[in-house]
């Protein structure tokens, strides 16, 4: 709500709000109506005792009249009221409220912030209940088993004559199903228990590393400015972020690789090259005489301002078994945190053709407005010599582009994980989706 900036105008507004005439207020303050009129039109300055008197007569704080009650606080209060269709509060008096009770006003805005935060949390949890593949699969399992038990025991309980062979079979089925039910419910309870404790949700070392990196904006400043900072020092500084020795070991290994990456593609020249428009990891790796995955990893550490549209790229790394070993999400694309990923990702195409770069545009199912340019390559490292199998790693860099940019043809669609993927007739589908049933194809009209 717009407020007069000048003290005189404010006095006028509060007087009118109170339904006082100029003459009445002037008399109460011991000045002439014409003088008050000059003040109200900002032609005479007002301060000191007179301002106190006017404030007292108007029933507001002196500060409210002289400097307003802090534009930020008033605006915050107005924003709170704006969130309701019918706030039921005297919105027009928010400045007065903020001026008189700044502590309470701040409390109202803090409370509002907290409510918004909790609302988001509820939304997230709700979303999780609907889309969490594990939860959905467990519940389905429990219900199916209960159905089998109910039906089978129903047959046995009718008291009707049942052949001994059938009877034995049904008993065995009930026994098997009850075992299954016990396991399924135990798994479910265990899962919900962990889910309820936010501190323990991030129990996997990789989750802890990624959460920490996300807080650092995926860039380790210590290694950019002084490449010799010990990885163990950085990990130690992070403190309780890493809850296990496994997590600390993973973080240390990550930092060592980061250090080598930063050495091969030093921040200054690298940023300069990217700012000059070079975002192709292949050409960047050639320019810096280094390998492709390194250039891809390095690109993923650059902040948003280096990229068109302001969205920094995402990065996914998997090992030879296809298990995700690193996940930096990008706007519109969040790799799965549980279970296996979508088998048609370019990441896996590259995995099956080591040392062959794969450059593909993909769209994420259900998100027509965003496409991703992807660069992928898999490398094999014979760290343990000829006699041992190589360590294979595939790396995929994703950059979001607006759908209107680039070619007209829709690129091929990928999902994140089968259970939450709505693509129909996907030849690579590993398990049924919990979504495709609720999103009828256009043919249904």
């Amino acid at each position, binding site marked *: 709500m717009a407020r007069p900036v000048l003290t005189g105008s404010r006095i006028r507004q509060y007087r009118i709000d109170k339904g006082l005439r100029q003459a009445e207020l002037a008399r109460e303050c011991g000045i002439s109506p014409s003088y008050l009129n000059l003040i109200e039109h900002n032609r005479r300055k007002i301060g000191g005792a007179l301002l106190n008197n006017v404030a007292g007569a108007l029933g507001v704080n002196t500060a409210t009249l002289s400097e307003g009650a802090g534009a930020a606080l008033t605006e915050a209060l107005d924003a709170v009221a704006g969130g309701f269709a019918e706030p039921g509060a005297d919105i027009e008096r928010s400045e007065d409220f903020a001026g008189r009770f700044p502590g309470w006003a701040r409390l109202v805005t803090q409370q509002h912030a907290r409510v918004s935060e909790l609302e988001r949390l509820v939304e997230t949890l709700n979303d999780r209940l609907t889309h969490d593949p594990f939860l959905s699969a467990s519940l*389905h399992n429990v219900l199916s088993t209960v159905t*089998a038990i*109910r039906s089978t025991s*129903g*047959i046995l309980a009718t008291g009707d004559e049942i052949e001994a062979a*059938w009877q034995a*079979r049904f008993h065995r089925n009930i026994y098997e*199903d009850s075992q299954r039910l016990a396991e399924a419910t135990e798994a479910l309870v265990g899962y919900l228990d962990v889910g309820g404790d936010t501190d323990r949700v991030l129990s996997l070392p990789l989750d802890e590393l990624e959460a920490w990196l996300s807080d650092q904006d995926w860039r380790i400043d210590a290694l950019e400015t002084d490449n010799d900072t010990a990885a163990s020092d950085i990990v130690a500084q992070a403190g309780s972020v890493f809850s296990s020795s496994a997590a600390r070991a993973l973080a240390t290994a990550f930092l060592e690789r980061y250090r080598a990456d930063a050495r091969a593609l030093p921040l200054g020249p690298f940023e300069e090259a990217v700012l000059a428009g070079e975002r192709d990891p292949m050409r960047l790796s050639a320019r810096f005489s280094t390998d492709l995955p390194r250039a891809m990893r390095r690109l993923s550490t650059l902040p948003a301002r280096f990229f068109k549209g302001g969205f920094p790229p995402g990065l996914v790394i998997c090992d030879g078994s296809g298990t995700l070993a690193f996940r930096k999400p990008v706007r519109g694309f969040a790799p799965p945190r549980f279970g296996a990923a979508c088998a048609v990702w370019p990441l896996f195409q590259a995995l099956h053709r080591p040392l062959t770069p794969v450059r593909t545009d993909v769209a994420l199912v259900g998100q027509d407005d965003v496409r991703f340019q992807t660069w992928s390559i898999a490398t094999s490292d014979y760290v343990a010599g000829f006699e041992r199998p190589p360590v294979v790693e595939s790396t995929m860099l994703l950059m979001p582009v607006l759908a209107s940019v680039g070619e007209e043809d829709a690129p091929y669609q990928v999902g994140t994980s089968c259970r939450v993927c709505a693509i129909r007739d996907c030849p690579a589908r590993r398990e*049924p989706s919990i979504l495709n*049933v609720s999103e009828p194809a256009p043919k249904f009209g």
Partner: protein
Amino acid sequence: MGGSVLLIEDEPNIIEAIRFILSRDGWRVDTHSDGLTALDAVRARRPDLVVLDVMLPNRSGYDILHDLREDPEFKELPVLMLTARGQKKDRELAEKLGASSFMTKPFSNGEVLATVRALVGK
């Protein structure tokens, strides 16, 4: 009695139990467990009624129902949908796609029998 039922469901013990209670009631019961080939099974068996689970391997029961209703020959075929998710939108989708009846797991044997009898009008 004496009609034929095709039960499309992938839980072996549910199949066994439903098959038993329907058989005892005088129905001839065939079963099929794969979503992808379910339509072929219906065409081959030509049952009087289909009991169709929603969550099948390889193909959703909703897709199968949709294809059945597209085929003029099976437009009127009674189809009883089974689902482990009793949500309103699931029921609505089943109705929209032309399910004759809808049952949420876990159901009782009595419910199954009564619904099957009612659907075939016997």
